[in-house]
């Protein structure tokens, strides 16, 4: 079930390697005597590789487990099962010192720029926190120089360094979050819906900034988003998630022009095209119903209750993760 059937490799080209990662959250009942009554299978066996300098897009509807993948990958949630390597560090077995190294190399940008910055801290303390934690600079002078440099990188005036988050707009706050993520000179950044809270004209600014920084520092991104148009623009490869599993992954143009999984097809056909003539001409696959609960996911292929081409065996057999072409993988019986 691995993306490439290779075991953990020392390949320098590969920065992030995840195989069969699972994250189950247990549901317990009872106030005094707690007992486990079930589990939310938020991520249920996900495998992928990310090359150095590449952007992998992770798309899917709310509740499909995208965010949990990002957080489990960085060790923010302990994984239930599977192997996770970032720059040859084993995330699941890392002790304190190694974990600190991983944290320095792998950072995160959050969705909500209002909730992810401490309102009582100045921009200076927010951005210099990673410098302090990782003991990157000892003198205050060096630290404040680095903060100024980081603010310049994200096109914010260094004069704003003593202001508080509420004095900034959403776009500016997201820039502060990006500066904080860059502070420790990471190689890898998980961008968890970094632009979905922003207005269209500001989204383009932030996306262009992320691309510039990627070029400048050879950054590797995991870009988690539900905006399929933006993902096509920014990502090199895209993986589609449904109910805790990846159902298809491919190079971006291959995925958007030749989607194979019926879920990918439906998802792409639901994206409105900003062109009325083209919109009227195309046909749409409208899915019925909602995403089922991850507590008790459907048997066999998880998509079968909503799938327009489901056959009898789809409800029994779990589809195999198959390679169709060079970099196009899909989990569906009917492809």
């Amino acid at each position, binding site marked *: 079930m691995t993306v490439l059937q290779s075991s953990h490799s020392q390949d320098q080209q590969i920065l992030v390697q995840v195989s069969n990662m699972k994250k189950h959250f247990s549901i317990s009942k009872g106030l005094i005597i707690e007992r486990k009554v079930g589990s939310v299978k938020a991520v249920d066996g996900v495998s992928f590789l990310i090359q150095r300098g590449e952007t992998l897009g992770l798309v899917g*509807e*709310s509740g499909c487990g995208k965010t949990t993948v990002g957080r489990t990958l960085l060790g923010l949630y302990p994984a239930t099962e599977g192997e996770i390597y970032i720059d040859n560090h084993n995330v699941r077995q890392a002790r304190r010192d190694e974990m600190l190294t991983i944290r320095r190399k792998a950072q995160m940008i959050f969705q909500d720029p209002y909730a992810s910055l401490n309102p009582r801290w100045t921009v200076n303390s927010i951005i210099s926190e990673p410098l302090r934690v990782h003991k990157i600079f000892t003198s205050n002078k060096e630290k404040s120089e680095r903060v100024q440099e980081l603010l310049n990188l994200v096109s914010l005036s260094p004069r704003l360094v003593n202001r508080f988050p509420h004095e900034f707009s959403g776009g500016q706050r997201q820039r502060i979050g990006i500066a904080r993520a860059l502070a420790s000179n990471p190689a890898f950044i998980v961008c968890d819906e970094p632009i979905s809270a922003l*207005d*269209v*004209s500001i989204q383009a*600014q932030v*996306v262009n900034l992320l691309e510039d920084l990627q070029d400048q520092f050879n950054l590797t991104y995991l870009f988690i988003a539900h905006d399929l148009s933006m993902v096509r623009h*920014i990502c090199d490869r895209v993986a589609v998630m449904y109910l805790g599993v990846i159902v298809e992954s491919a190079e971006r*143009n291959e995925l958007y022009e030749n989607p194979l999984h019926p879920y990918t097809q439906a998802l792409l056909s639901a994206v409105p095209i900003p062109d009325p003539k083209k919109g009227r001409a195309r046909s749409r696959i*409208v899915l019925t119903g909602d995403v089922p609960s991850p507590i008790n996911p459907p048997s066999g292929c998880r998509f079968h209750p909503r799938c327009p081409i489901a056959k009898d065996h789809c409800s029994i057999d779990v589809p195999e993760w198959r390679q169709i072409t060079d970099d196009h993988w899909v989990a569906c019986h009917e492809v």
Partner: protein
Amino acid sequence: MANHILEVRDLSTRFHIAEGTVYAVNGISFHLDHGETIAVVGESGCGKSVTMLSILRLLPIPPAEIVRGQALFLGRDLFDLSEREMENLRGRDIAMVFQDPMTSLNPVLTIGRQIGETLRIHMGLEKEVIRERTIKLLEQVGIPDPIQRLNDYPHQFSGGQRQRAMIAMALACQPSILIADEPTTALDVTIQAQIVELVQRLREQMNMAVIWITHDFGVVAEIAERVLVMYAGYIVESAPVDKVYENPRHPYTMALLAALPRVDRRRSARLRSIPGAPPNLLVEPTGCPFAVRCELVTERCRVEMPPLILHGPNHQAACWIDVSTGIPF
């Protein structure tokens, strides 16, 4: 003229707050025809929602103040009606669906009770009739098992189902205008597609006029016949839907369209971003509000607000510059 179900003339709404006066809506005029769907597009804070809340007189006064303007519904100015008359009209003739169905539904009342309330207040129907109607409405908006779901509370519904319930509530009295304020923004694309289709189907069945507020040019292309683009409390462009995409005449509309990545095209270049941020509405506007971010700006733009200039049938834009040549008119 006779075909206008709603006509708004020179509407200006301000908010008086501790920091000063917020110039939220600055003298906008537009109309809506019987059975027509228009989209109001713009970024947060551009005055889309405030315009609609002003028309429905749902803004708290103070801090809000409707400085001037008329909102003619079938020829009658809504601003002249008594509170009582307005209450009768809201929900019965003009209904509204809000962005966030979780905060606009009452969490401690069942869905059935909340939909039934509209019918009870406006139609004065019997309990049994209300129940039957409510079941039928839920069925119409595609909620499976409506008899069972009637007794469910909002938290037992999924996001898409809640928005369907809100639509059922809005449609209960068969209004002639439905105002939908970003009804799909909080939803996933697959659910958004379902809701868009639902509203289109019901609109045709009931011959209802729709005002759809959104910031998503993709959704606009799907539902609207005519589009109003708003910026900083002004309507900067108004056009039939095809014209907005083929031949936008305002630099802001052009910039917004250029800033959009396309799901149906290969990447060709970086996104064209619009520099700067929308203006501070606490400052009394002078000149064109887009001037500071505009590539084609001239001296005149900074001091004098351009009027809406006609570019074709139903196509107007508020810009001193001919965007196709870059030369002032």
